[in-house]
């Protein structure tokens, strides 16, 4: 069983991953899709205005990727600290 100090480090690294991923989560949906939507709409992606595309397509793709990245990182972290099941 890993010791207490290691578990603290494990938790800290977990929190760091969370803050990175949640920052991206916030940027693609709230910043690109809502706050900066008018500015981004001046850029085009084929037939899509970019801001509109993020709000109705892009953000959702990123959400899916974020969860799978998190799973990958955490599985590695669990192994590193020997806390996997």
């Amino acid at each position, binding site marked *: *069983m890993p010791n207490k100090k290691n*578990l603290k480090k*494990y*938790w800290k690294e*977990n929190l760091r991953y*969370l803050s990175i*991923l*949640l920052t991206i*989560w916030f940027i693609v*949906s*709230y910043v690109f*899709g*809502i*706050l900066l*939507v008018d500015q981004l*709409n001046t850029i085009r*992606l*084929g*037939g*899509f*205005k970019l801001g*509109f*595309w993020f*709000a*109705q*397509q892009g*953000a*959702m*793709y990123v*959400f*899916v990727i*974020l*969860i*799978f990245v*998190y*799973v990958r990182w*955490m*599985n590695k972290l*669990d192994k590193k600290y020997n*806390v*996997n*099941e």
Partner: protein
Amino acid sequence: MWTWILVGITFAIYIGIAIWARAESSKEFYVAGGGVHPVINGMATAADWMSAASFISLAGIVSFTGYDGSVYLLGWTGGYVLLALLLAPYLRKFGKFTVPDFIGDRYYSNVARFVAIIAALMVSFTYVAGQMRGVGIVFSRYLEVDIDTGVYIGMTIVLFYAVLGGMKGITYTQVAQYCVLIFAFMVPAIFISIQMTGNPIPQLGFGDTGPDGVYLLDKLDGLQKELGFAAYTSGSKSMTDIFAITLALMVGTAGLPHVIVRFFTVPKVKDARISAGWALLFIAILYTTVPAVAVFARTNLIETVSEQKYDELPQWFSNWETTGLLKFEDKNGDGIVQYQANPEINELSIDRDIIVLANPEIAKLPNWVIALVGAGGLAAALSTAAGLLLVIASSISHDLIKKMVKPNITEKGELVAARLSAIAAVMVAGWFGINPPGFVAAVVALAFGLAAASFFPAIVLGIFYKRMNKEGAIAGMVVGLLFMSYYILKFKFGIFDGGREAVAGLKEDWWFGISPEGFGTVAMAINFIVSLAISGITPAPPQEVQDIVEDIRVPSGAGGATHH
């Protein structure tokens, strides 16, 4: 004819699964024995999550509101990121059966447990009322029975597999229901995408050009403006409100008990994480198609009816006129349909549900595709109803009876209690389906707002802030629930200002310009502030509770979901 065959086959499958997957123990009844494969659980979660509203109404809402509809697309998918990162793995490690279980144990208090039970029941009942109505409506439109008969048939089916199989039966029927509903949604979408743009992938098709070489979205923006509507890609809600609604829906999604409880059914913490990923992937397949369907349907609809002679409109128009979903009133008597934003000139009123229901007919697709949409709508409504009924049943038999009223109840007794509660819950839900409160649409906002205002802060703080104590959590949940209820009662029902007629005039008084749909964001913030403030001036939680928090942060040693 096709409809009866397809609905018959799918119902036979659901019942077959129910007989095969009977629950033998309370653990199987509540969490399917805790041994569900993460991909299977992801699929079941997706079916659980996507209700009649997602299947039938969402594309219509997006179609009629354009960019503003993004709040639902973002809100109902982005919540899964929060769920996967902040809640699911830790709750799985905690390893109990229900959300009130976690609240009650983490905050070492039956008062906290009771507040959580009340919140779970409020959220689930408001939600399930709409589902049973949805079952009735789909039946009445496709099988030409009346809505009440449809509700009875739906009740019988749900009763059968929810009561017999509990979570185990529900999980495996939901997998079948996911397959039916996604197939039913994608087939017409792909057909229409090919028809309109030549691109078989709807997600790309709606950014493509039509046969005239103009980008579809540009054409639609132009059509909308010609008729006096806001441009499709820009919408008309304020940015603050869009932001607040999206956040409230995301946080509410992550706090809905019938979604959270699905992550108790997988064997390991690792599985809970990946299972959320699969769930979102399966959901995103439908949700990224929705905006495409919305654009195709809107363009098609405007081109088919606008400025056309009423007598020469296609057959589907009069079909749907008889259901009352389409209404034409020739105000200027010229025999031509004027579809305009200006209500003085506009002669056509369209129910937005028609976008999904009639879309295959408008696009002239074969009959079996139209029938498929009916079977898909039923699958969506039934799967969500069953998931909600299970939360209601376990709140009563497990949280209330086993944990509070009669702790020495036997395993067998608890299973009987669970089944009886499920039967009672189906009856109540059916009653709501037959006598729908006139406010079904209004209370959905309430369900998300309540979940955001109560569960989400209490659970997140319980995991990420060791010092959070029962005083803080209870105060936060109660204040959050009160603020949310007050806001809905005031601005959605007009209770303090002379009834529902007054609601429209109160828009000016919205706090920070935030609509009742988005107020969950404010109520959640209030919950967080109150929780932190109160816990700061009251004693820290006992050592053994702090040890529980340490323990749930680490995956090892999860074991099955267990009784203590």
